[in-house]
């Protein structure tokens, strides 16, 4: 679904290159042509006429991926007219967020100039919230932003979903099973369903239809769960239906890290989530490090403070830095905001690493991408250099000297 724009040839030369899929390359060149990475290495011939970016003393990485956001689905959270991230239904499996995305959102430039070039855009709030899509933070119509749709089906099994289960976690789990069973039945007997020769099913046909790709394992089921017992419910149901499970949140994941690793279930985890609640009394900073050490595939996402999944989705770098401060290996943390999420979301053949043939989402940093002192110097999305401007940089320039000239 990627619309290839014929972009210029760009050679990023002399930098310390972190391909993520392989060892770092000192004084490396990343050659970009026609929107994709043409070559990476120390012996790369730079064609005549290529735009050169001198990255000596700089760090070159794949563009960062934030694997859980509502970018494009909200402009101002308290202005409901600008919020598109959920529909009013407990079961919204048929809801795909794609057409709710506003490519003109001011959040997109604000986020990408910080080195985040791709994002999962996911629905929220409902028990079965719907389908997410993977986008590049580029310009153009929705079709152009969207890389993959749907990427995953999203379900909540924590406190927030209890209403959908009649007020009990057990009710929630049972309702999910009933819907999945009916989706199986629907998938096997569509013609009976069309001829009204089936009993009433637990969800409308459109939702049961949307769940077929989950049952077939074509897309993962992303389950938000934090408490150990909730995560185990997710693991149990995934086993029963042979689903591809991804845990989102997993704040108490460190307590059952081995179990999650054995089940080969990846997690989307927020390093700075450490406030105890009855949803996750054991939340703590060491969570990502402990999960990664147990062999769990980890993607780091943002959340601390309001807007962590939208307006401040950019702080995923800071979250990753803190994961390192609390025990995660630096390379693992970089991977957890690049190739890790790409693998979890099924786009690693095109995203998350610097290798020939990959989509040219590349960032040149003045230093360590996870450190506050580092500046983003160049952002390239699909082989095109993005101007480092946003509505916020315009406000800065207007009020840099007072009084402003309107």
């Amino acid at each position: 679904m990627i619309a290839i724009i014929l972009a210029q040839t760009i050679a990023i030369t002399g930098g310390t290159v972190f391909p993520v899929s392989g060892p770092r390359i000192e004084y490396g060149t990343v050659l970009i042509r026609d929107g994709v990475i043409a070559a990476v290495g120390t012996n790369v011939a730079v064609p005549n006429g290529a735009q050169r970016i001198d990255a000596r003393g700089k760090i070159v990485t794949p563009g960062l991926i934030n694997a859980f956001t509502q970018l494009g689905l909200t402009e101002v959270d308290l202005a409901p007219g600008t919020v598109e991230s959920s529909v009013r239904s407990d079961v919204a499996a048929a809801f795909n967020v794609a057409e709710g995305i506003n490519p003109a959102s001011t959040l997109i430039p604000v986020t990408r100039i910080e080195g985040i070039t791709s994002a999962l855009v996911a629905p929220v709030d409902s028990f079965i919230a719907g389908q997410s899509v993977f986008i590049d933070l580029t310009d153009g119509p929705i079709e152009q932003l969207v890389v993959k749709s749907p990427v995953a089906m999203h379900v909540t099994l924590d406190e927030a979903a209890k209403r959908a289960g009649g007020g009990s976690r057990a009710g929630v789990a049972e309702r999910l099973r009933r819907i999945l069973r009916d989706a199986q039945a629907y998938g096997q007997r569509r013609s009976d369903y069309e001829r009204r020769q089936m009993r009433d099913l637990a969800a409308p046909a459109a939702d049961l239809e949307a769940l077929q790709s989950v049952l077939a394992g074509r897309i993962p089921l992303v389950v938000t769960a934090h408490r150990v017992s909730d995560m185990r419910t997710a693991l149990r149901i995934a086993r029963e239906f042979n689903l591809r499970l991804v845990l989102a949140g997993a704040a108490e994941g460190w307590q059952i890290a081995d179990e999650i690793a054995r089940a080969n279930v990846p997690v989307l985890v927020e390093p700075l989530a450490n406030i105890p609640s009855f949803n996750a009394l054991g939340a703590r900073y060491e969570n990502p490090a402990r999960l990664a050490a147990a062999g769990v595939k980890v993607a780091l996402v943002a959340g601390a403070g309001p807007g962590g999944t939208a307006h401040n989705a950019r702080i995923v770098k800071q979250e990753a830095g803190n994961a390192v401060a609390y025990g995660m290996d630096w390379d693992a943390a970089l991977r957890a905001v690049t190739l890790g999420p790409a693998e979890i979301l099924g786009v690693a053949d095109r995203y998350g690493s610097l290798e020939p043939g990959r989509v040219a989402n590349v960032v040149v940093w003045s230093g360590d991408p996870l450190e506050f002192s580092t500046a983003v110097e160049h952002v390239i999305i699909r082989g095109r250099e993005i101007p480092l401007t946003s509505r916020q940089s315009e406000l800065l320039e207007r009020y840099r000297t007072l009084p402003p000239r309107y």
Partner: protein
Amino acid sequence: MRIAILVTAGAALASASCAPFVASAAGGKSPPAVTQGQPPAGATGAAPAAPVVAAATRDTLSVDRPQYASTYQRRPSPPVLIRNATVLTATGVEIEHGSVLLVDGKIAAVGADVLAPPGATVVDATGKFVTPGIIDTHSHLGVYAAPATQAESDGNEMTNPNTAQVWAEHSFWPQDPQLPLAQAGGVTTIQVLPGSGNLIGGRSVTLHLVPARTVQEMKFPAAPYGLKMACGENPKRVYGSRNTFPSTRMGNMAGYRSAFIGAERYRRRWDQWLTNRQGDPPERDLQLETLADVLRGRILVQNHCYRADEMAQMMDLAREFGFHIRSFHHAVEAYKIADLLAREQVAVSLWADWWGFKMEAFDGIQQNAALVTQGGARAVIHSDSESGIQRLNHEAAKAMWAGRRAGISVSRDQALRWITANPAWVIGLNSLIGTLEAGKNADVVVWSGDPFSVYSRAEQVYINGALVYDRSNPATWWRTDFELGNVPAPGRDR
């Protein structure tokens, strides 16, 4: 016992302060603040906390008796010498291989050569950084406590747009499990505020961040009270959605003005009675009592206000009633009026980068603190968050680097002042805390590295000279009652 102390940097400390204002706690023109240890307006002395109401005072008026006085006691500690550290003083001076000596709850010396007195605990801080304890001007810890059930939601008395009569300390729960997390982030003093649902939300309370059974045991004895006020969307949404007053910004303004008109009258009556104490005293009104103390300059106004134009309205309101706004809070548009803020000497307590969650936050930019500072006004990085309070050093770092990258010069010392000296001024405690200077309270943090690095963590936290947090020894970490049996004990969970 002679204590030999060489304070080589002392003179530099005194003269090198380049804070934008050198102001006393009360701002020079105001009378002394009503502090958390004192009776309210009218009482004659700074009455200490009386454990029992003595017989002689049974006939006195309630206003003359102690009002929920502080019972804070500093934890005894031998002298502590932290040496060989990079000492960031927040006074304009940084000392390589420096030392800080803590004696009897106070900083006894700061400098390049400080000798350990006999019996002192010596902390070798080679490769580490030392700063003043972090101060948060805007916290709801304890009043919006974890685990955040409805039972812990005690921060917003949203039953009337003016609840000046409520005091945050009367909601504060000392067993909030979020408190130890903030302490582990190097925070030593917090101002706990009521929420922003009301035009006038009530009194704040300023606390030492120490384990305690009662809020009184945490109350900072010398701290003046603050008054929480709120502009803009929150009060008009809360009351407008109920079809009650106020539902507009002009309604908000009328609400503040009516309240202070009432307070003017109340203050006059009481001040008259207090001069001669003839006849029956005027009837006591808790709401007006607090507002009258704002008019007397004894309570510091802490004003939640986002938009530039609304901050200008509030400064006019303060002018109309003759009080001073100590700090705007959140103030995401402060950068648009840095000049006005500097002229009026109103501080601003800011986030590093929050924006967009509501219309009045839509114009937030990461250079806010840097631009405000460049404009000569006093900036603070605050949290308003149980998460952000744990990493105010990181928030300050983001704001510092955002400024520098935009070509605005911000020194590391200046950025440190955003979370130490400047918040101390905002809560009226700048003579006691906020810098590393001899004579100040020994609220000190030892960091694993430069506190403005994402990889640095607080390793030791001292409050009044006593080690209250030591990262290397999980067995000693503050665990609230709530955590027992609920939250796996750190260090004992592997």
